């Protein structure tokens, strides 16, 4: 049986040949109808690009303390000025943005992957497995996440690295995807085409991969984006409280130093403005992307509005 299955039987029909153009056409058409997805993704890419491009123009070592003269307002040499410890704030932004994103991406991916797998197992197989997973998720979601994260972060006395930070955030990030994806799998599982697949002799795990998963991809992508932004938010929250990686100039740590040195009251606006703008842009781009993906996953939202 496997030989036939794996040789991906594709006979060339007239419809197949034009399908690539078709798909491209449809993608373009679709983008016109779904501007939030496009704007969100473009904004996100720009944010990443600007830190890549920025790294060509600035010495990244200058993101460390005592690299430049402290507390300089923006100038030609120091476009974003410098902070009290003598960091070049432009370099801090160029280094910090990807770092913060890295935490978000690692935690988001881990959360959705773990949550997604648990959701599929739980929804498809049901029974006691489902009861157990659902129970853990339900209980887990009632506990305030930031509190748990604070406790975990405080237990690591030597302070967290960026990766450890991501793992700490991921430890709770799977709960919400697990619940929402499970609900989606449950509704898809009841569709007649699942029954038809079963009546065609398709085994359970193949049904998950071939029948359920493809239809969930836009949804999983949407919840991935949601998880990433939740993870970014959680990590910044921890860092502002001083529980982040002290040695790394992430966006959250910058805000911690802003707070620590009372930069707002002292009128050192160049210190706090860039991180706020970067966070704002980041969340707007993630929000728009997830709204756009939601439309892909659930066209009914579009029709009704």
């Amino acid at each position, binding site marked *: 049986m496997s030989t*036939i299955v794996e040789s991906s*039987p594709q006979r060339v*029909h007239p*419809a197949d040949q034009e399908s690539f153009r078709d798909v491209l056409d449809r993608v373009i058409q679709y983008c016109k109808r779904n501007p939030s997805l496009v704007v969100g993704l473009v904004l996100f890419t720009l944010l990443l690009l600007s830190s890549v491009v920025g790294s060509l123009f600035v010495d990244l070592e200058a993101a460390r303390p005592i690299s430049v003269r402290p507390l300089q307002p923006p100038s030609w040499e120091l476009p974003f000025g410098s902070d009290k410890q003598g960091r070049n704030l432009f370099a801090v932004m160029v280094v910090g943005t990807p770092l913060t994103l890295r935490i978000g991406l690692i935690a988001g991916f881990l959360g959705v992957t773990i949550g997604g797998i648990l959701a599929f197992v739980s929804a498809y197989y049901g029974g006691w497995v489902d009861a157990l997973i659902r129970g853990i998720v339900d209980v887990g979601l009632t506990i305030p996440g930031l509190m748990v994260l604070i406790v975990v972060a405080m237990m690591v006395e030597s302070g967290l690295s960026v990766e450890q930070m991501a793992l700490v955030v991921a430890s709770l990030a799977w709960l919400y995807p697990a619940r929402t994806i499970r609900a989606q799998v449950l509704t898809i599982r009841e569709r007649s*085409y699942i029954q*038809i697949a079963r009546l*065609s*002799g398709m085994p359970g795990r193949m049904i998950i991969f071939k029948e359920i998963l493809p239809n969930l991809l836009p949804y999983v992508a949407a919840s991935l984006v949601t998880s990433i932004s939740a993870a970014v938010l959680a990590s910044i929250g921890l860092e502002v409280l001083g529980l982040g990686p002290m040695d790394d100039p992430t966006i959250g740590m910058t805000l911690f130093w802003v707070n620590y040195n009372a930069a707002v009251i002292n009128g050192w606006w160049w210190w706090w403005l860039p991180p706020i703008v970067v966070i704002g842009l980041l969340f707007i781009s993630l929000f728009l992307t997830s709204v756009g993906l939601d439309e892909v996953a659930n066209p009914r939202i579009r029709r009704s509005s």
Partner: protein
Amino acid sequence: MTALLEARSVTKVFGGGLFDRTKTVALEDFSMTIDGDSPSITAVVGESGSGKTTLARILLGVTSPTEGSVLYKGKDLRKLSKADSRGFLSDVQVIFQDPFEVYNPFYKVDHVLTTPIEYMNLAKSNAEKWQLIEQALETVGLRPEETLGRYPHQLSGGQRQRVMVARALILKPRMILADEPVSMIDASLRATVLGSLQRIKEEFGISIVYITHDLTTAYQIGDNIIVLYRGSVAEAGNVDLVVQKPSHPYTRLLVGSIPVPNPDHLWAAEAPPALPNRKGSHKSCKFADRCPAAMEKCLQQTPPLYQTDPYRAAACFLYEDAPILTNEKMDNVFQANMPVASISH
């Protein structure tokens, strides 16, 4: 000879659990045999709440009966070995009501046709696979080049449903259970689906259980008919007899309520009786509270099936002079492809 599929005194009760005091008897003491050797189309007709959907689910093994059993080649559906359940999959296939929901929107229609071939090992090569598919499509009157490579939404309801008939055909089943296959299809395309069902019975000797609420299409393609009312058989027998000369008061009411597409043949002037809400004992005939012919006896006892004609039985005390037919023997009034001449008795 063991029958292909046999329902033996099947009863299904919903509810009645610890916290649920409302018990619903969806199907009561129902027996039916599909022998698989003499092909026929058996129409199961009933309104909502008649138990026809429950019957379909029980025959497919999706739901287990509360009492009684369903046997596939003499073996209980609930205890099939792995090999037997694969055999069941290829022998008993199904066509669902909604011709859209059965297609995974992610794939082209080809997907539903290739899947059974791949997973049931029906073809040795790619070429053979496509040959099988094209044959099946042509049998149901579809041109492969106009059907394959398309997405479900590019086909009409009638075409989608015929692709499903083709899918079932590929598995070479001995029986197809068609659950309201045309109720969501436009009138002008219905005929094509019904025609393809009729054709596969005649050409491939596949028995069909046609479940529907629509007496007209049941009459059109059925050989035999079972009229269900609230989980029990009201009348069963040859379809011409039952539809043209209904004997059970409920069948009469049903037949009389069909909106006939003929403005000269209007509904009888008198409206069917409003529900008089006559409550009998729990043993009463289930139709007694709506029956214009109800007698005292109908409120006290459940009528058994009486064999009113050689090819018909009705569960009604109006016919108590006729011999009683036990529920297990209901099939005795069925005959495959009976010549029309033998109807008059």
